[in-house]
């Protein structure tokens, strides 16, 4: 595989630009100009980042003090960027909606972080990590970005260890690695099941150190509600102090959005309750392109929904599929029975049946879809949940399949299983109240990560001058699907190493002309934010914000979830438009705008999710191919596997806001590979 690609000099394209022949989304969008990343580097792939770092202009330390950067979000990308830019001597203002930067949702990542250290001497290299990531992303990512990611991955580990991140170690005191899904080398560094927490605390502590040093000013319980674009540059943000309700203006020479993913558009996801799209969406409405919004990663092993009251979903590490067998009853009549009473002959180990060679270890998307089909057929297990079906009617469905450790316990002994999965099984028992050693666990897929996000160039700058975007919030390096243990890598890569080296080239032109709160762009943004808040407070309808959010989630999950069809997506767009109308006339927000008001906060977020949901459906509708986390029923192999159409869709779909009453404008950025050859994914 990779061996052949060494012939690729990185100087000749291995594929041509895409020519789209299908047009499923006709009428829902306007075709815009082709988009070219003018910052994309050239030359041999291994030298591109080094060359760029050298070519990018420097800012002399004395001048850095005169330059200011606003960073929204304090997760791995935002926290790391704030710390690094602060250390360099810039004036940084950091914003987060939580009560402390340490709570950003990066903290919840479990598994680990990839790095091409090759500590195991098992043939890993920068090129192999690059290759695995591009392949894992189903050839829908930019090769230069991914190569850079693989290249700096090793520095991330060095940096984190120096900060005191307590990675797992071997007896000799050296760092331990484990292997993760989809690859054949051991390159994942981990801190038990809490790697995200430890990495985030490292970044947080580095950032707090800069707060003490006076280079970073920290604004907690602040929510960004608009970006200020003055004289063609992003120059600041409007933020609401969530405690006092005050609408504040913050100005700077550059703005970085590191605000995470928008999985909560589905209402139920593994994201935190507060995770939202507002910052990115407000920027989108001001001109920033939203790229590949339909690419969503749905994780097969989450704890199922227990009822309409459910507020979020919890991930169970995928590693359980190594030892657990997934099944449902053969007969729908058995679904209510105690699983232990269902004889072997009446069980359908459907993954083993449909995919005999990979069995329970098929990739995430395949496992997820298979589980969905079983439940759609009426063979799901667990409590019946009320949901709204494609026809808009309420129905009762069991949403769960068994993940059975019985065989593993018999084979390895209970002690071994405990040793391997104890934390996870405890967590499962705490949430479900069922003992997984006695009863098979119930699992169901859940939205976990979004590969889409704001479009950025190689330097992480959006198409809005001076507006940068890092981490999950940008459309990033994962293409159509992210490999396990790569989200942490990308967040820290962006924050510690990439952004600080690219933003300096932009800041070298600064400081930009001083503007103040009387600048028309500031006044306009302030007024818009204030008016929007006033509107929420005065609609005075009858429905709670959450009820709209839940309804949006149901539409998205049903039509823009694991499997998407043309008809379904068109229907969803209609439903979302109706929902939007109802929201703006019937939502009920109590309390006042000048104090802590969690309903008001949610109202703003849900309003943005509704608009985003519509765009996601349009993007999914346009992309009549299946790739990574995006599965169009119309485009599959005979075995039900995802089928790409490279000749039509090897492009990044960057969407421009078309106005409240207009259609979004599609700009296509061709994905041209020079260091890797595109192949169809196969799990034969």
């Amino acid at each position, binding site marked *: 595989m990779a061996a052949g690609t060494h012939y690729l000099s990185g100087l000749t394209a291995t594929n041509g630009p895409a020519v789209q022949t299908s047009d499923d989304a006709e009428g829902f969008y306007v075709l815009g100009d082709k988009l070219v990343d003018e910052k994309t580097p050239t030359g041999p792939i291994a030298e591109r980042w080094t060359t760029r770092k050298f070519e990018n202009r420097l800012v002399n330390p004395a001048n850095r003090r005169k330059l200011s950067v606003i960073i929204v979000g304090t997760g791995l990308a935002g926290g790391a960027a704030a710390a690094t830019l602060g250390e360099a001597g810039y004036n940084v203002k950091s914003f987060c909606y939580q009560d402390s930067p340490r709570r950003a949702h990066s903290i919840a990542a479990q598994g680990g972080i990839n790095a091409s250290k090759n500590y195991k001497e098992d043939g890993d290299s920068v090129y192999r990590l690059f290759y695995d990531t591009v392949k894992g992303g189903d050839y829908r990512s930019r090769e230069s970005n991914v190569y850079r990611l693989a290249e700096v991955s090793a520095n991330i580990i060095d940096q984190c260890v120096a900060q005191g991140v307590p990675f797992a170690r071997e007896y000799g005191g050296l760092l331990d690695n484990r292997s993760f899904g989809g690859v054949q080398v051991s390159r994942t560094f981990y801190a038990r099941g809490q790697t995200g927490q430890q990495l985030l605390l490292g970044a947080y502590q580095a950032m707090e150190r800069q707060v*003490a040093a006076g280079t970073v*000013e*920290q*604004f907690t*319980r*602040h929510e960004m509600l608009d970006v200020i674009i003055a004289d063609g540059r992003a120059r600041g943000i409007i933020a609401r*102090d969530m*405690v*006092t309700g*005050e609408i*504040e*203006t*913050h*100005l700077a020479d550059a703005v970085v959005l590191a605000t995470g993913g928008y999985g909560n558009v589905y209402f139920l996801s593994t994201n935190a309750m507060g995770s939202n799209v507002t910052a990115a969406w407000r920027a989108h409405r001001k001109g920033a392109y939203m790229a590949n919004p339909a690419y969503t990663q749905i994780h097969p092993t989450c704890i199922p929904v227990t009822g309409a009251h459910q507020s979020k979903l919890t991930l169970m590490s995928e590693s359980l599929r190594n030892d657990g067998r997934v099944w449902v009853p053969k007969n729908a009549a058995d679904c209510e029975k105690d699983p232990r009473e269902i004889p072997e002959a009446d069980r359908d180990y459907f993954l083993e049946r449909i995919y005999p060679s990979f069995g329970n270890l098929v990739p995430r998307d395949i496992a997820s879809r298979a589980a969905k089909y079983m439940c759609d057929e009426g063979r799901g297990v667990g409590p019946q949940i009320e949901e709204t079906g494609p026809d808009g009617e309420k129905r009762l469905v069991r949403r769960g399949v068994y993940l059975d450790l019985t065989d593993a316990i018999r084979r390895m002994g209970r002690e071994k299983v405990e040793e391997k999965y104890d934390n996870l099984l405890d967590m499962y028992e705490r949430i479900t109240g069922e003992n997984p050693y006695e009863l098979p666990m119930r699992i169901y897929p859940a939205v976990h990560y979004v590969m889409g996000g704001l479009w950025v160039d190689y330097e992480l700058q959006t198409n809005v001058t001076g507006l940068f975007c890092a981490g999950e919030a940008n459309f990033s390096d994962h293409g159509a699907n992210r490999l396990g243990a790569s989200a942490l890598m990308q967040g820290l890569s962006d924050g510690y190493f990439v952004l600080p080296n690219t933003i300096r080239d932009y800041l070298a032109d600064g400081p930009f002309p001083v503007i103040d709160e009387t600048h028309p762009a500031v006044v306009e943004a302030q007024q818009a934010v204030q008016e929007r808040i006033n509107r929420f407070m005065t609609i005075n309808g009858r429905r709670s914000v959450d009820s709209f959010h839940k309804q949006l989630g149901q539409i998205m999950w049903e039509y823009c979830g694991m499997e998407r069809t043309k008809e379904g997506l068109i229907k969803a767009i209609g439903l979302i438009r109706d929902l939007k109308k109802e929201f703006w006339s019937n939502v009920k927000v109590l309390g006042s705008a000048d104090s802590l008001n969690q309903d008001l906060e949610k109202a703003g977020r849900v309003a943005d999710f509704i608009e985003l949901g519509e765009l996601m459906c349009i993007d999914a509708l346009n992309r009549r191919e299946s790739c990574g986390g995006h599965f169009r029923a119309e485009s599959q192999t005979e075995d039900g596997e995802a089928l790409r159409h490279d000749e039509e869709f090897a492009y990044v779909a960057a969407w421009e806001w078309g106005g409240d009453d207009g259609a979004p404008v599609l700009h296509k950025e061709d994905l041209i590979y020079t260091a890797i050859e595109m192949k169809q994914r196969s799990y034969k």
Partner: protein
Amino acid sequence: MSPRVSCCAVATTELVKGVRTTRSTIALKLLMAISGIVFILFVLVHMYGNLKAFSGHDAYNEYAEHIRTVGTPILPRTGALWVLRVVLIVSLVAHVASAAALWKRANRARPVNYQVKRNLSSSLSSRTMRWGGLTLLVFIIWHLINFTIGKVNVSGGATNDPYNLLVDSFDTWWLTVIYLVAMLALGLHLHHGTFSSLQTLGYTNTASSRQRARVAGWVVAIVIAGGFSLVPLFTLFGVITK
């Protein structure tokens, strides 16, 4: 631009710099721990000395005289005793003053109490350190009046004979009860105090050393409070007599 937000008057937004470690709460705790250990050693010896009462009038009085003459002629009579008294007074002042400072701090740190509060792991002894300590302080004052400074013989007998004063005192049932209550308070105080001082001094860095420190607390409490209780009880029940 907007200032950094601090929502409440109580919280501070400043970082302190250059504050000496010797002015910290932990330094106060160390002071309590060290002075407490001085007291533990003292009461251990004191308890042992009291047991001399079982050897009878002469042996006990001889011991009482000995602690006044120990170290002579290099030291003057009662010289060693005064050295000990000074150490104890300094320790007492340190112990009480730091306790008072920390108590005051604790009250300021939790100005509003919970409507409902359940204790999970704290022992009775640990929760009664402050009021128990005050009880002991009151007792010590009475104890000094009774046997050292005032030499009060409630039975009206002689006060210049230590053994007789002891027997007269503990023949009085209510005095014995006061002493036993005080010993209960002492036992409780020692039970947590021993563990707490080891923890404060940083000797309980593992689960096993913490367990040993807890055992030490029990042993010290039972040996000392129990040992002290023997003489009054045996006097009351007529085993120790004039």
